[in-house]
């Protein structure tokens, strides 16, 4: 292989590693992405322009056109897409990568019949690529809303296992037999696509990110097989890197959701749905969040309002919340406490509590003063409060708290609610705020949860 190209590939591999590393820290993430992109550009240009063999201009032109088309579409779509649609786009792009890998296998197959090793590599790449492609497309359409309900055929688990085993057995036979039957390859290709579809279809929309991450690492693997085939180091290393990092990421995501991976994938077959967890009776669906996301949101906010309630007192979390507030202030965030007149269980309960941890009196705002401020607040952190932020007081004349003035946290950009469960507060009524689009629930004892948020914040 050409020396310069080798070095270029080496550099590209290194940028991938470094880029990925940088992606793992909020401050460097953006630059990391650029680093990896630069390495990728270098590798692509090198591959095209430093190619050793004879290539007709026609082919060059085709390649050029393909790249231009891909670039324009990719760029436009990525730039235009709404923030909320990004995950599905990632899924789509992932599918493209898988398809690309599968196609390579399909094309290369005839050239290598008879070399069992190469054939196995080709088949592996093709199968994995196809699964990833088909799975991603399903994931995309689920996130997209095209396919709404998880579809469950009977005996799912068994069916799926049978298919994948069949594919593997068939591939092994194929390699050993040394067959060069192109049609059979297409059959395998088709079976893999089918498996991809069946794999994702029963999984609920809320678990899609995990699935995408898994398929992402599949595609990495497929790319690595390509690297094996061509003895191309950058494909190999890049693919393996994504394969391993993607796998770890998948586990990390499951952990953040507090569920084992098997539960995400196979749990689906058990008929249990992700939204079924919310434990709510109104049937609306809630979003859960975790300390680390909470920390990031607050760290990058301009204005945070904390709404303490009885739960803060029960958890005796006044010291932690004060520390949190101080840290945020030291990072340049504007922080206030919104004190509802009947928060807690006695008049002035919140005041006693916060005075104990030396919260500055000037940071406490009365309800009337703070209510207009929620509209320009980035994050509201509701800690162990419930009735005092319940919009039923405005909306529901039949509610026992109807007519009570409340803190209008609904107007803020993001609402994070920390409590232990979906149980109601003093008034014993449901709170529709928990089901608000803008609301995320941070479940857990206030002291525990805030301590975790605090330590995440410190690590930023």
């Amino acid at each position, binding site marked *: 292989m050409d020396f310069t190209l080798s070095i270029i590939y080496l550099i590209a591999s290194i940028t991938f590693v470094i880029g990925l590393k940088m992606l793992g820290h909020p401050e460097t993430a953006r630059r990391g992405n650029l680093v990896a992109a630069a390495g990728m550009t270098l590798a692509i240009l090198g591959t095209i322009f430093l190619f050793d063999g004879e290539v007709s201009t026609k082919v060059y032109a085709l390649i050029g056109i393909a790249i231009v088309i891909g670039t324009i579409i990719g760029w436009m779509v990525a730039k235009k897409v709404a923030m909320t649609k990004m995950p599905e786009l990632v899924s789509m792009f992932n599918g493209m990568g898988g398809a690309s890998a599968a196609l390579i296998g399909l094309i290369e197959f005839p050239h290598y019949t008879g070399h069992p090793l190469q054939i196995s590599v080709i088949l592996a790449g093709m199968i994995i690529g196809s699964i990833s492609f088909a799975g991603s497309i399903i994931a995309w359409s689920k996130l997209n809303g095209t396919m709404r309900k998880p579809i469950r055929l009977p005996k799912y688990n068994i069916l799926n296992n049978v298919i994948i085993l069949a594919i593997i057995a068939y591939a092994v036979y194929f390699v050993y037999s040394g067959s060069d039957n192109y049609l059979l390859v297409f059959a395998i290709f088709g079976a893999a696509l089918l498996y991809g579809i069946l794999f994702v279809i029963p999984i609920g929309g809320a678990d899609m990110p995990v699935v995408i991450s898994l398929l992402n690492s599949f595609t990495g693997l497929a790319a690595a097989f390509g690297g094996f085939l061509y003895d191309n180091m950058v494909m190999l290393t890049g693919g393996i890197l994504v394969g391993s990092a993607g796998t770890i990421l998948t586990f990390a995501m499951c952990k953040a959701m507090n569920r084992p991976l098997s539960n995400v994938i196979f749990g689906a077959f058990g008929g249990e749905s992700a939204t079924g967890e919310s434990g709510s009776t109104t049937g609306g669906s809630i979003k859960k969040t975790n300390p680390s996301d909470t920390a990031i949101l607050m760290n990058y906010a301009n204005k945070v309002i904390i709404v303490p309630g009885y739960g803060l007192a029960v958890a005796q979390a006044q010291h932690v919340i004060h520390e949190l507030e101080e840290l945020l202030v030291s990072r340049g965030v504007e922080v206030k406490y919104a004190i509802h007149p009947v928060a807690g269980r006695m008049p002035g309960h919140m005041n006693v509590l916060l005075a104990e941890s030396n919260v500055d009196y000037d940071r406490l705002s009365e309800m009337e003063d703070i209510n207009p401020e929620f509209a320009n607040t980035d994050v509201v952190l509701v800690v162990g409060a419930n009735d005092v932020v319940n919009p039923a007081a405005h909306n529901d004349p039949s509610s026992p708290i109807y007519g*009570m003035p409340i803190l209008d946290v609904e107007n803020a950009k993001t609402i994070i609610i920390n409590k232990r469960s979906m149980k109601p507060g003093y008034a014993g009524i449901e709170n529709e705020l928990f089901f608000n689009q803008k609301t995320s629930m941070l479940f857990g004892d206030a002291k525990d949860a805030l301590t975790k948020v605090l330590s995440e914040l410190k690590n930023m």
Partner: protein
Amino acid sequence: MKLGILKETSDGEKRVAITPTIVKKLIDDGYECIVENGAGFESQFKDEFYETAGASIKNKATIFKEADVLLKINAFDPDEIKNLKKGQIIICQMYHRSNPECMQSLAEKGISAFSLDAIPRITRAQDMDVLSSQNNLAGYKAVIVGAYETTKIFPLMMTAAGTITPSRVLIYGVGVAGLQAIATAKRLGAIVEATDIRPETKEQTESLGGKFIYVEPDEGETSEGGYAKEASEDYKRRQKEAVDASLFKADLVITTAMVPGRKAPLLITEEQVEKMKNGAVIIDLAAMQGGNCELSEPNKTIIKHGVKIIGTTMSPLSVSTNASDLFGKNVYNFLTHLSDKDGFKWDLEEEITDETLIIQDGTIRKQ
């Protein structure tokens, strides 16, 4: 509508029903206000303050003559009732269930009367709830009085001249007053224990750093509309057993236990007082309702068996400035809920009006 704000007449009462700040709000809302001279003096509100706020200062007789609505904190005494005119409306705390004769004489005058203590304990009415706002201050002040009266200090102190052990404070009844007492005693560094018949108060006590003495509750509901029900004899026995150890070590005991419409439960007998520490202090906030301590007498301080027993509900009176502030705000919220500047709405379907309107045009609605 012309509102008349009267000076309180009961002994020791230092509060006033409406403060200058509230007068200003009422006038902004279109009400007229006339204030009896000296009404706010004891709560540090001078007559000038009222005048600046837009009220006119008059003497008692004039007010009784001119006002459409008469405002006071405590029930009207016979002298005052005599001066009432038919069609006038009075608002005050009447405790109508314990004062049927007084209700009678009011009805005879052909007036309408709203009682502030009858405001229902519903969420919507929280900002008119004078019992909560005043009991809260009572809880705070009871601890201050206790700290003032004992010959010990509250906090633990390890000093060059030896260690002072922290005082032990025991609180009976974890309602509004009890909770604030827990918070205040805790703030001052005492070891605080509390007990109540309603089991949900355990968590509440702990949320303020106090220790709860748990007594297995009676079967069935222990509370009703936020208030406690009366305890069984068996409960009382078990309560004594559980609390005695703490009682005999306590330096300060504050009792706040009440059951609405009944005599306050008897929680500390003379026999128990005898076993208490020499120099201990008991503050009985339920003294007016019969007292939680056998020996306590309303508005009196007694020393018996080495224990000082202070029977009072007067605690909020001594923080008259804040107490009047809150009371005034409650009355304001109540008033603007029931009426506007042109008169009352008389919406008898509405729960708050219905519960508080004791006498309507000379007819007693509630007994």
